[in-house]
């Protein structure tokens, strides 16, 4: 088959099985857009800002496990995509971003809309390519998808100069079935000797805990994790990125750990004598102060990326491999060793864990006259039967969604953890909805975050992706305000916006339904109404308790056993009427 460069790009994407391209046109990609116009197999979603394209592709990827695909033009189109690329990079999300580049002959001459995209993205991609020859396009795209989706996933950028996609240069096309890269061999099974060492520790632990993370979601290891956890009988805690891989409603689940994790999860970590870490990277939000981290524990760490192991916390038994395969090896090893739960040890450990649980660190004032954000999330959980895809932005609302919506399945909780990108939630929800047209998709957001990619409301209308936007409107950059309250004697420097738009009118202006709620008793009916409108995007602007804080909290420089808890339940301030 003889095709020109632009056709080769689109045909390669089709042969790769790509359903959607999230993109935005411009000079350097006009040939590509012409090729898109001439086919119907790969659908193009026109966003309203390139950042939105990357987050939408990211939401698509997180909710399906398939790579998200983005197409942007050179210069400003490319730089607008960088935040979304970095967001995907930090959370190891598979994504392929194609950026147009100025023609090869003028690269380096400060040509119109020229930016060194390969250089700019180098520190926030898994890999990137500059295509210099039309005959190399197909192979490069194949490599890009392979690198993005294998091993520890991540975004890959392919920068394509305009002349490479020119309509008049045709070459023969075939899409490679496989690629071999001599310099890239992702790990698979774990080292047998290390597995053996791990089994020995698992057999003798007295106060064990499983600490699992996003790697279990990324590596599709959920079933194996559940099986292993049930076999061992250990308490299970998960990171923000891991939520859902182990069912939150399972009685072995003790909640999220870390800065806004539960008291029981953090205490269990602190007092444990053995941590089985699976697909988690000992992030600073999780560990707290490093020299006080889990002083009594031996650590087994399963991760596909050797660089994640012993990066911040030294571990005793490193196991490099795919979660799915390594957990299977562990299960087999335990069965072979005739593992039986040490009833006595388990009983006393669980008694301790349950005692920590009994303080009910997530309790909040249920009699408040103001709408409590936690209450909204609980209600949303009930209305959606715990089965929605929930995307979020970044801030307090994100933590409340994580804490009060118990996810039972992986890929349901879609948020930016590593980069913490405000503006992520709405476009991500559009990507999720495209991938799961029949599912409930909610975007839990805040009055500040939603304004960072609000323009995508227009995309949601054009492509008929009915999502529910749950705006926990506290009229504050709430997370910032909370830190200022705790650490800066309530000097609320620029964490308050004196003018915020009328979100109801804004939603209506974009062609959607807007509903404002300011009384607790209206929350449930409004949620029911919103989720019942299957074919409309509904913006629920919920005026919540303005000064509510996220608890519990490990403050900077503190450790797991030193948490700030909600002081006295029932004494938080009501919403100031403004």
């Amino acid at each position, binding site marked *: 088959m003889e095709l020109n460069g632009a056709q080769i790009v689109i045909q390669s994407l089709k042969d790769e099985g790509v359903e959607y391209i999230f993109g935005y046109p411009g000079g350097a990609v006009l040939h590509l857009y012409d090729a898109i116009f001439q086919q119907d197999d790969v659908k193009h979603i026109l966003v309203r800002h390139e950042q939105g394209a990357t987050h939408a592709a990211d939401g698509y990827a997180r909710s399906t496990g398939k790579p998200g695909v983005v197409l942007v033009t050179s210069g400003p189109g490319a730089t607008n995509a960088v935040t979304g690329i970095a967001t995907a990079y930090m959370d190891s999300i598979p994504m392929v971003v194609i950026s147009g580049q100025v023609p090869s002959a003028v690269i380096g001459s400060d040509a119109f809309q020229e930016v060194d995209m*390969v*250089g700019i993205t*180098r*520190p926030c991609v*898994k*890999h990137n390519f*500059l295509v210099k020859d039309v005959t190399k396009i197909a192979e490069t795209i194949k490599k890009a998808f392979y*690198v993005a989706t294998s091993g520890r996933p991540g975004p890959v950028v392919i920068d394509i100069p305009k002349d490479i996609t020119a309509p008049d240069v045709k070459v023969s096309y075939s899409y490679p079935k496989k690629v071999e*890269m*001599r*310099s*890239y061999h992702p790990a698979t099974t774990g080292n047998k000797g290390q597995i053996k060492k791990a089994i020995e520790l698992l057999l003798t632990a007295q106060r064990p805990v499983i600490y699992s993370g996003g790697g279990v979601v990324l590596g599709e290891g959920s079933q194996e994790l559940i099986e292993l956890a049930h076999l061992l009988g250990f308490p299970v805690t998960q990171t923000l990125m891991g939520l859902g891989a182990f069912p939150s409603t399972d009685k072995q689940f003790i909640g999220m750990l870390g800065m806004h994790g539960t008291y029981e999860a953090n205490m269990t970590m602190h007092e444990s004598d053995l941590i089985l870490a699976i697909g988690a990277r000992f992030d600073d939000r999780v560990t707290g102060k490093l020299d006080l981290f889990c002083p009594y524990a031996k650590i087994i760490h399963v991760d596909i*990326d*050797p*660089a994640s192991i*012993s*990066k911040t916390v*030294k571990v005793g038994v490193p196991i490099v491999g795919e979660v799915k395969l390594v957990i299977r090896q562990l299960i087999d090893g335990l069965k072979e060793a005739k593992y039986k739960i040490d009833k006595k040890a388990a009983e006393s450990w669980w008694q301790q864990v349950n005692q920590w649980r009994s303080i009910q660190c997530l309790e909040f004032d249920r009699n408040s006259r103001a709408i409590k954000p936690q209450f909204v999330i609980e209600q949303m959980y009930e209305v959606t039967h715990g089965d929605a895809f929930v995307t979020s932005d970044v801030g307090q609302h994100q933590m409340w969604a994580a804490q009060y919506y118990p996810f039972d399945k992986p890929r349901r909780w879609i948020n930016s953890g590593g980069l913490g990108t405000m503006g992520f939630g709405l476009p991500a929800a559009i990507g999720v909805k495209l991938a799961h047209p029949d599912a409930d998709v909610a975007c839990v957001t805040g009055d500040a975050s939603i304004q960072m990619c609000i323009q995508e409301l227009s995309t949601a209308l054009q492509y008929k992706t009915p999502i529910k936007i749950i705006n926990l409107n506290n009229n504050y950059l709430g997370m910032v305000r909370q830190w200022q309250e705790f650490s800066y004697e309530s000097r609320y420097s620029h964490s308050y916006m004196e003018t915020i738009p009328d979100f109801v009118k804004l939603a209506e202006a974009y062609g959607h339904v807007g509903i404002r709620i300011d009384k607790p008793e209206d929350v449930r009916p409004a949620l029911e109404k919103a989720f019942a409108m299957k074919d409309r995007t509904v913006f629920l602007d919920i005026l919540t308790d303005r000064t509510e804080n996220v608890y519990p909290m490990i403050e900077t420089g503190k450790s797991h056993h030193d948490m700030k808890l909600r002081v006295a339940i029932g004494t938080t301030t009501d919403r100031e009427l403004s």
Partner: protein
Amino acid sequence: MRHVIAILIENEAGALSRVAGLFSARGYNIESLTVAPTEDASLSRMTLVTRGSEDVVEQIIKQLNKLIDVVKLIDLEETVHIERELMLVKIKTVDKMRDELRSVVDIFRGKIIDVTPTSYVIEMTGTSDKLDAFIATVDKNSIIEVVRSGATGISRGEKGLHL
């Protein structure tokens, strides 16, 4: 501790900047870095000298290995190895010290490769320490210019870093 890391990397545009960028982004220090194509034109070989605690060097090696363009690498510190650096030094000479300088160059097994009535260019190879020692020996004020290649290294014996 000082570590000499030998790296085989795809000989592609941008490969060098991936390595250099990794070091600056993660705050690792590079004492020297040399790079040139190998007998296989598709590969370059780098020798990178860095300093850091064992934990840091462990991370450096893992992060380097993670770069998609890096094909193979070895921490030469873990093997018996040989290191060589090339140095060219231009020295201002006055008659009465030319003989003396020549004998110092001989002791260090260097070569004088350019001579003018008022200057020598000296070529010298050796370990970085030896080159330091030579520089320390000559009168500072007479040095016009020093250029050093940075260390390159290879392991002893039959084993080698290759595909």
